[in-house]
């Protein structure tokens, strides 16, 4: 008997979001679009940047350094100038991200065995990219320095550094990005669909109709959870398929573990959505509430910046963020065959969050009736 009621409710919930062509488009179009936009566009690598060179040295070493800069693949264009004013202007207007200023005595100092200076000016407004460009430039300058007479004498000829990147040997950015998006998109969809579902019924007056039916409160809750979870799992599956077959991200771990933890992740997200929904009177409030949670949740998840870099006092806040745990699982399962113990260790907090949010939502739900 309860199963018949629940089935009717779940079918209704799915139809309510999917029957309307507009609703269908919104649920399917943008997430797929986001997958491609983010995987190709949202990269932290520095490519296609311009730098400027002001070479006031007439000697061989200045020329050598300029040649090497010209040859570096990282930079799209090397601009040359003869005036410091033009250099300042180029940085000010963000035409170039960095400028190299080679002084007039550069070659002379090197030949004389004195220490020679090169000035690098970086655009601090783009701190992250500047840091990386600064690193590249230092490397190039160091390679020139190693060939100077003084450098040759100083260099111990026996040490060579061979960097090797584990898990992602070529540091392909999409290998990091696409698995992270699986977690992010499930958060977005799960939160919004759930937050809207109760609020919409309340706004349209159908909620009373539901409450006078023989459906029990927990059945309504389960029905309201099932549909967004199914939709969330659908998106997770689409993203995993695209990651493996389109982006060529290696799936080294267990798909079963991934899905197993995804269910707890979605449950905690949907619980949050329901929590927001039971607090809001209108769809507008529900959407605002969902975004109020989502933006900090994304920023404080370790998705874009490592949690360890955050201030000490802020770090405990990330402990209640389901995205934090699922990001570890999804990236781990994809790239390094995360073992069961680690998956379980990160799923347990998800289960606790889910139990808490669902419990609170159920409580709020009942309290609203009284």
């Amino acid at each position, binding site marked *: *008997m309860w199963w*018949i*009621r629940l*089935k*009717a*409710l779940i*079918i*209704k919930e799915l*139809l*309510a979001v999917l*029957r*309307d062509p507009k*609703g269908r488009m919104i649920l399917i179009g943008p997430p797929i679009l986001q997958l491609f936009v983010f995987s190709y566009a949202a990269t932290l690598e520095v490519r296609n940047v311009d730098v400027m060179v002001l070479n006031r040295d007439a000697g061989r070493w200045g020329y050598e350094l300029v040649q090497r800069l010209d040859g570096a693949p990282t930079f799209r264009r090397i601009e040359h100038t003869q005036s410091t004013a033009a250099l300042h202007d180029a940085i000010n207007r963000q035409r170039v991200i960095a400028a190299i200023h080679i002084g007039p005595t550069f070659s002379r100092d090197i030949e004389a065995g004195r220490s020679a200076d090169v000035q690098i000016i970086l655009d601090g407004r783009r701190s992250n990219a500047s840091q990386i460009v600064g690193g590249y430039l230092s490397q190039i300058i160091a390679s020139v320095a190693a060939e100077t007479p003084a450098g040759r004498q100083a260099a111990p000829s026996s040490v060579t550094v061979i960097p090797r990147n584990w898990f992602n040997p070529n540091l392909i950015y999409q290998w990091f990005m696409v698995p992270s998006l699986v977690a992010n998109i499930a958060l977005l969809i799960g939160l919004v669909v759930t937050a809207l579902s109760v609020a919409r019924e309340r706004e*349209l*007056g*159908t909620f*009373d*109709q539901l*409450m*006078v*039916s*023989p*459906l*029990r409160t927990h059945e309504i809750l389960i029905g309201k959870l099932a549909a967004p979870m199914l939709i969330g799992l659908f998106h997770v599956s689409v993203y995993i398929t695209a990651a493996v077959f389109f982006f060529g991200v290696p799936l080294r771990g267990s798909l079963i573990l991934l899905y197993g933890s995804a269910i707890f992740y979605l449950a905690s997200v949907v619980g949050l959505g329901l929590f927001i929904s039971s607090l809001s009177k209108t769809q507008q409030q529900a959407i605002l509430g969902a975004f109020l949670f989502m933006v900090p949740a994304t920023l404080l998840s370790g998705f874009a910046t490592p949690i360890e870099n955050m201030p000490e006092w802020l770090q405990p806040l990330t402990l209640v963020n389901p995205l934090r745990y699922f990001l570890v699982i999804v990236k781990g399962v994809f790239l390094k065959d995360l073992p069961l113990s680690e998956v379980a260790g990160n799923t347990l907090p998800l289960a606790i969050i889910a139990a808490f949010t669902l419990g609170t939502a159920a409580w709020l739900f009942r309290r609203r*009736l*009284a």
Partner: protein
Amino acid sequence: MTSAATSNAPRPDVIRLDGVAKQFGVAPPALDSITATVRGGEITGLVGPDGAGKTTLMRLMTGLMLPDAGTIEVLGHDTRTGAARIQAEIGYMPQRFGLYEDLSVQENLNLYADLRGLAKSERPAVFDDLLTFTDLRPFTARLAGNLSGGMKQKLGLACALLKKPRLLLLDEPGVGVDPISRRDLWKMVEALTEEGVGVLWSTAYLDEAEACHRALLLNAGKLLFAGPPSALTERVAGRVFKLTGAAGRRRAILACALEEESVVDGVIQGEAIRLVVKRGADPATLRAQAGTEARIAPTAPRFEDAFVDMLGGGPGGRSKLAEATHARPADDGRPVIEARGLTKKFGDFTAATDITFEVPRGEIFGLLGPNGAGKSTTFKMLCGLLKPTLGEGRVAGFDLRRDGAEARNRLGYMAQKFSLYGDLSVAQNLAFFAGVYGLAGALKRERMALMTEIFDLGPHANLSSKDLPLGLKQRLALACAVMHEPEALFLDEPTSGVDPITRREFWTHINGLVEKGVTVLVTTHFMDEAEYCDRISLIDRGRSIALGTPDALKARVATPDNPDPTMEDAFISLVRSSSERAAA
């Protein structure tokens, strides 16, 4: 409603409509060559069921939309060229007030004063006048969203009157408003006409039209009638009768009478049946069926009688739904709906105090009362939407608190506004409600097919229910509410705004179901719905102030001046005297 006296002084036309037409997309025309006038210094009723084109016509008059064909002249300006000047000179009160619910009464007034460009120096005097006029002075700091329906309408009216208009357009000011507030509102508007303001009052309730100087009757985009209401009611003069003395069997008799060739229309009015017969038909033959004690006497025609006659008469008296319903044997005589000392407190506000009544099987019980008096609270406690603070409610013998789901399984619910899933198709809505009430397999298919056939939903099965015309929505809502053969039906203003034909069809079904032993609880502001009840509880200030048959309540307020009071008179007078007692 007091009838406005007609004087013969010539009044200038404030609106002239000439061949006005409007169509949206491929739908049938919303308005079809309307030619009419509205005069200054009068209340003109714009009457017709929901979807007749009333709102469209009003918006065309304001210049917010332009007609596809024809011309509209408002206060001498054509809406095509002078919309800005029209908007500066008229007052317009859209449906659903157009108030900002998150602003206080005073803030709403300030905002509209800004929007209408009312000079700062004039404001104190104007606000003072309007707050006195609308009795809203004690509530200036209250949020508009927390006002009762009647007070919201008064505030809406105040906002429309900020710059004294020469023409006032009111779009369904009576919706969601109790009879007392409606009467207040009417008096305010009447006072304005004495200053020469022209008023256009749109309404879905035909009884409101009767009090207007002149009425424009719209149906399905066509103007059926324009003129004084009495000119319309004349067409049924001498053909309207009241059949009395058939108390216990009035529903069965009405059903038979409606099947008669000679009967155009029939409705229940308390203990009596109101019948409109064909021209030349002899009503005496009807009396014969009703038994020896029945008496039949002519009575004054109403606007609605004439409207139904104009539309070719109401539907028949047979309810296929009732015929397909299994009769419930009159069992142990135990009441189906019981309220015992129901009390509801919200914080320190008591919304309902010690409400007690019993509804036996096969009875229609009505809950009436002013806005915010506690009738909705009582209704909600009895269908399980609210938990009572004290007391208990039972449906079909099940305690709503302990066996809520069992009780809810035995009740059907139909709310005032269409509250089915608009994004789902007709068939999907039926399937959802079948499933929620635990129907499955062959039984589910059988019940769905039956509902589809009875309510003629077949041709629309795959349409989204939000795209259905209002009449069909109403049928679908009833189908979903009775799909599981409930013992008790809970109706919240079930026929609000629907056309009179659909309304009669609906009550024919309900009457048929009641004859089969279904019990009905109805809450409403509309007196013609109240007339269908066997007994009524009148609720004011959270207490039941009167309980009895409609005729008994009417009899209580009969005076030598008003020997035959209407249900509305009874309502107003009983509530007033209870308020006076409370104040004393």
